């Protein structure tokens, strides 16, 4: 579904991605983990061309997004929904208006049709009652849910999540995890999640990819990931108190 071919990206002297090759399959939940500054969000931003590679190419099925013209970009980006780290809701619009925004700006749907679709999405993320509220009147977890409702309102095939559980307490984090899993099960979407919350990754991923030093050092299903002998993976697991057996250390 999404394929990186020898993608290289540098910011000044710092090479963040170094000839990265990776393929994300249709229908899977692909979770990218790694320490801060290792290039997780940079990888995600390349998928929707908020960043362009210095070298290499990125394909979304047969479309090369890294070299697409403006018109093709619109068509390719329409396949994506994105939940940004801080939800990126427009502060002067209510939750309902934020979710309705892409429908109002991009489709010819009537106001009645929009109301029905927005209500469906808000219901799916458990925010039916929060429609009239403004982003600064709701909690961080609710903002993420509203951001997710906006991400799915155009019925995308792929949803990208940038740190969906950062800044949230463990209970809310797990509820966001369940939502991500629901999106895969109920909507059949392909998900790419960037996180450094390994508990979350182990719960939702079909495959986990660990990025370090500009490369993916490990890409495997959760059960294999926690058994990885790669020192970077081991260090990351130990830092979050996760053993090879998958149980919690006291």
């Amino acid at each position, binding site marked *: 579904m999404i394929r990186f071919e020898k993608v290289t990206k540098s*910011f000044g002297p710092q090479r963040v991605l170094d000839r990265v090759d990776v393929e994300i399959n249709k229908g899977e939940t692909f979770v990218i983990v790694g320490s801060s500054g290792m290039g997780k969000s940079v990888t995600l931003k390349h998928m929707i061309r908020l960043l362009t590679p210095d070298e290499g190419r990125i394909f979304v099925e047969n479309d090369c997004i890294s070299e697409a013209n403006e018109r093709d*970009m619109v068509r390719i980006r*329409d396949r994506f929904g994105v939940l940004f780290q801080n939800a990126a809701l427009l502060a002067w619009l209510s939750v309902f208006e934020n979710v309705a925004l892409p429908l109002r*700006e*991009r489709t010819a749907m009537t106001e009645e049709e929009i109301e029905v679709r927005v209500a469906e999405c808000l219901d799916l993320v458990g925010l039916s009652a929060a429609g009239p509220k403004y982003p600064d009147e709701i909690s961080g977890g609710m903002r993420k849910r509203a951001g997710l409702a906006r991400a799915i309102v155009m019925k995308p095939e792929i949803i990208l999540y940038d740190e969906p559980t950062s800044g949230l307490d463990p209970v809310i984090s797990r509820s966001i995890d369940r939502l991500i899993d629901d999106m895969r099960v109920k909507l059949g979407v392909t998900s790419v999640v960037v996180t450094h919350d390994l508990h979350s990754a182990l719960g939702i991923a079909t495959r986990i990819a660990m990025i370090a030093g500009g490369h993916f050092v490990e890409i495997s299903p959760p059960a294999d990931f926690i058994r990885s002998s790669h020192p970077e993976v081991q260090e990351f697991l130990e830092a979050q108190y996760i053993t090879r057996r998958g149980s919690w250390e006291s």
Partner: protein
Amino acid sequence: MRTVLREPAYAPPPETFIQGLGRGALDLLFEIGQATLLMAAGIAAMRYLVVRRSRDSAVRQLYITGVKSLPVVTVVAGFTGMILALQTGLELRKFSQEVNIGTAVMVSMLREMGPFMTGLILAASVGSSMGAQIGTMTISEEIAALEVMSIDPVRFLVMPRLVALAIMTPLLSFYSTVMGVLGGGLVGATQLGVSWTAYLDNATKYADNKDLYVGMLKALCFGLIIATIACHQGFATTKGAVGVGNATRMTVIVSFLVILIVGYFITRLFYV
């Protein structure tokens, strides 16, 4: 759809003073080019005013720009007219020519002070607020979200602001001229012994239609300049809260400078 977000640019520090100067000049030209393209895209996007939602957005900006700026424009313009009348009146009184303060106030307000003061007030109040708002949206990824949703930020954010300032700056400039002339008349009547009738006769006698048109043209240019610089600085914001502060500051400084430079050239074009 025009991409307004930029990837972070990195360049090694210049090795010599001349190299630094050259890079500074190239950066300046690049920014002027980017801002000009943004203005052109915003003007081209005005065709979307036929869509009700875009029109509503422009009306909201008209309210923010016009109605909310009215009190400060009233006070500043009124007192400017009063100061102009007092300063020129005291000098003219030495030659018993104080009745001519009407012409002095009217011509200076129409040609220069009206558009210039309105431009500065709007740059400091409305422009800075636009720069800060768009800068905050940039660093909180709201602009990125719009681009990913293929909602054109130029049509959605820049165009309504351009329309609002292009309409409101000339209107407020005319209003500030009227307020300035009234302020001058008040000083004439109370401090210099010039009756309202004599003052207004004198003020309208030598004022030319050309003064009005050129003043309005200046105000229109200033409005477009302020909106463009505010949006351009906002979209170029990086580095969090400090970056938003910088974008706000730069919006005001650059707008002031460009207003002064453009004002001079328009005057030169029409009066020399």
